[in-house]
């Protein structure tokens, strides 16, 4: 005898409570590649290894063949945690902005393992999201600001400005900036900290928590300001003028 059990189970569905669905689109979009890969280059398990290998190869090539400007940057300017190397060709980038995981701003400091620096700049306002990649002490925190008047979109997702922060005092080579032939690098200062302003094609490699060199695998067509505040190294990326970038950097508390 049919007992309508399946029907009654279906009727139960709207009455059952699940935890509220979080806002996923806002967290997912900034993490997407410009365009998905047409076919997988590597099996997923080997992909990060392959990226690391590419980055290492590029680093090795850069160290061997190109007079690096890293000495000038690292030693003369004392910008701890970052090195800059000029390379003849930038590594191919899948264009993905891998920021790590979206976290509430309130818990971001705890997850990153250091005190976050927030710009007090009025026109910039509050960040629209916070991301943490890796674990302390080598975690990387990124604050995202959506595109708005004065902030052009710089990635596939809704990103107008990225402010990334690391502990720069732990490893002098934590991140390395690879600068392509067309890029311009200027030395400046933000407060008492040395700073670097980079315009033109460039990309980053970084060292993960296990000490492996990883390609950050992104190429934002935009300008970058690198400076430090205490032990924290900051990197601002946006399509803004040097003057505006400095304004924002100087407002960081």
């Amino acid at each position: 005898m049919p007992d309508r059990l399946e029907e009654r189970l279906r009727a139960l569905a709207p009455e059952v409570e699940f935890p509220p669905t979080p806002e996923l689109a806002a967290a997912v979009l900034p993490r997407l590649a410009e365009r998905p890969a047409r076919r997988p280059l590597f099996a997923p398990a080997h992909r990060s290894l392959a990226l690391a290998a590419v980055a290492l190869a590029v680093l090795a090539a850069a160290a061997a063949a190109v007079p690096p400007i890293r000495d000038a940057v690292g030693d003369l300017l004392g910008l701890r945690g970052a090195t800059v190397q000029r390379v003849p060709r930038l590594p191919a980038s899948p264009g993905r902005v891998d920021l790590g995981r979206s976290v509430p701003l309130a818990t971001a400091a705890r997850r990153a393992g250091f005190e976050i620096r927030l710009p007090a700049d009025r026109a910039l306002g509050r960040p629209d999201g916070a991301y943490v990649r890796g674990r302390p002490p080598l975690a990387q925190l990124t604050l995202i600001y959506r595109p708005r008047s004065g902030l052009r979109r710089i990635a596939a997702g809704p990103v107008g400005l990225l402010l990334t922060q690391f502990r720069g005092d732990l490893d002098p080579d934590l991140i390395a900036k690879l600068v392509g032939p067309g890029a311009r690098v200027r030395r400046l200062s933000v407060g008492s900290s040395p700073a670097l302003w980079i315009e033109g094609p460039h990309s980053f490699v970084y060292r993960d928590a296990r000490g492996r060199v990883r390609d950050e695998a992104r190429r934002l067509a935009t300008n970058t300001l690198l400076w430090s505040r205490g032990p924290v190294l900051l990197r601002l990326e946006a399509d803004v003028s040097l003057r505006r970038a400095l304004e924002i950097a100087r407002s960081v508390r």
Partner: protein
Amino acid sequence: MVGRPLPDGELVSRAKRGEAAAYEDLVRRHARIAFRTAYLITGSAADAEEAAQDGFVKAHGALGRFRPGAPFRPWLLQIVANEARNRRRSAGRRAALALRAVAEGPSEGAAPLPERALLAAEERAALFDAVEALEERDRLVIVCRYLLDLSEAETAAALGCRRGTVKSRLSRALERLRAAEGVEALHA
């Protein structure tokens, strides 16, 4: 005039061409089912959120492998469910579910529930309790198929088993529910 929402297949093709807005539509459309599926597997809302986020990012990166014309949702749920299984911390953790609260007595200013509605609410509560009392494997297959309204293929993807297994597990679970209800009726 507002256009008719585009089918998943069209959004997938656009997303493959690099249209972020098309993928955003897909994320919005499937966020709830992805999150709930992940929640059932991890038993934790925080882990489910991470799994769903990472699942959507990975699915986007893998769109090149997506077979045109295939349904998007089972494919997505498989990726999300894998992420969720990787995060499952202890096998014993069960996703807590609850029935929407029904006012017990007439609250201030509100009319008391008609008797029929009250009876229906009680029956629903009894059925829900019977589902909750099932052993985890049976409970999961019932929740996926009827409470999340997943297809057989989607349930298989979510639970990481074959469709045939879903079928047999489901009929066994239904039998056990019927048996449990029969016992209730005898005691009533």
